[in-house]
């Protein structure tokens, strides 16, 4: 089924025109699904542009991703007050595993607060400027420095680590 993807192509072109080589990859996957990878240094600028000028003011969720060498964070952004059918734009940035720091986007989209806390819990990514990165879902006695969704932690390792803390 061929669908009209001119709106999707338009937002990709807008981003490419505005940010040039800061856009590492941008593709229209299918109708209403756009994936964009950007340089992590431009995260705030791109998010601001999308939110203020293109009405992508809704963050559906933030996914963490372990790429073995690096970690990645995907912001699933969406147009909010659009009358037509909306596009979900997945904005991906990569960060080094040994220095996992990113600026928070809650100044632009307040709804991102809990999602950033969740990614911090599970992947150990620090969102600089976030008012409260205390554990949201991991228990009080969770061993520090264990980020369960990172690939280096196998199920068994986590089990042993928890048992150690218990003793």
């Amino acid at each position, binding site marked *: 089924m061929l669908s009209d993807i001119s709106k999707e192509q338009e937002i990709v072109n807008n981003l490419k025109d505005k940010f040039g080589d800061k856009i590492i990859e941008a593709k229209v996957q299918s109708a209403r699904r756009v994936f964009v990878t950007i340089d992590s240094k431009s995260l705030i600028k791109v998010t601001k542009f999308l939110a203020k000028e293109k009405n992508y003011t809704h963050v559906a969720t933030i996914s963490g991703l372990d790429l073995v060498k690096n970690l990645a964070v995907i912001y699933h952004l969406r147009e909010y*007050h659009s009358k037509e059918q909306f596009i979900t734009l*997945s904005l991906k940035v990569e960060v080094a595993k040994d220095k996992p720091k990113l600026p928070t986007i809650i100044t632009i989209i307040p*709804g991102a607060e*809990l999602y950033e806390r969740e990614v911090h819990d599970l992947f150990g990514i620090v969102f600089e400027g976030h008012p409260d990165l205390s554990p*949201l879902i991991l*228990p009080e*006695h969770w061993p520090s420095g264990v980020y369960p*969704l990172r690939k280096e932690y196998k199920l068994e390792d986590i089990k042993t680590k928890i048992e150690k803390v218990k003793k």
Partner: protein
Amino acid sequence: MSNSTYKVPIGPQHPALKEPENFLLTVDGEEIIDVKIRLGYVHRGGEKAFENRTYVQGLYLIERVCGICAMAHQLCYVNNLEPMMDVEAPPRAQYIRTIVAELERVHSHLLWLGVAAHEIGFDTLFMYCWRDREVSLDLMEMITGNRVLHAANTIGGVRRDLTADMISKTRKGIALLKKRTEYYKKLVLAEKTILKRALGVGILSTKDAAELCAVGPTARASNVKKDVRKDDPYSAYDEIPFNLITYDLCDVASRVLVRVDELIESANIIEYSLDHLPTGPIGVRAPRSIPPGENVSIVEAPRGEDIHYCKSNGTDKPERYKVRAPTLGNWASMAKMLIGGYVADVPITLAAIDPCMSCTDRVAFIDANSGKNWIWSTEQIKKYSKKNGGR
């Protein structure tokens, strides 16, 4: 100011909560001035578990994210994987999926209406709603084989076809529920017990709902016109006419009315789908593994949108499977609703977003009850079950 404030913990174990989460309220007298949320008490490590299971096993694991919106999560899962596998479910399967998804919305909204009535001390309505909810559960059992955790879908279609007998029984059940729902709507608008406890309680302005990224009936009750079934149609929704329900009171009453109206819309969608049910096969064969890629799928669950992200690596197991259930999207809005309200309104305000703690808490590994951590093996669970009369 600081001398007159107190901290009141609600949960994880609290009579007002049906499931365990923790809300630390800062109160000044009866008024709530701040809320701090702590989740994770029913985490089960779902996202890690997906990475260790095949896509077919994941089909059944995804339902365990939530017992109430099992169909919505499974539908989101298959909608995510099918384009990546380059398969498409046939039209008849799409219509059956729509019917089961709407039956689930009917059961969930009736369940919610009952819980809301209970929270404001109107237990007669609670009993009525839960009696009627049985009708939708029975229909789902007839169609899928299960009251809950329906396992209706498979990758590439649905597991069971609808027979002529099932169709006529579904029509009868839906007609009955529609009549009852119309009565409830009349009752909600006239009954003082409800209006006194709902009007002007738990305010969430349209602006706040948009900024805090509220979803589902919670957003629509704050006059945000947003419904995945309209905005990003899946299954058969682009072929079915229905109304997007919004109310602009922005309070608990508004949230009740949105859900009652949606019950009627769901009944209409089911009737339309039965009238226009296409003929043909109910499934196509799907491959076991997926070439490297990624996809995002969104489904309107009864409580709001489910969003799933999948990254595949060429094998039969996902590299990463991320699940965001609607309740997590509504916590920030809920904190906003509580602030400025009274402690006595906490139960109904909490209930008004229709929270599903299990949905929200899909990722953990252990139960952190009163600081104790432990993991039960399958054997231990079986032993416990046997001790308590299980087979």
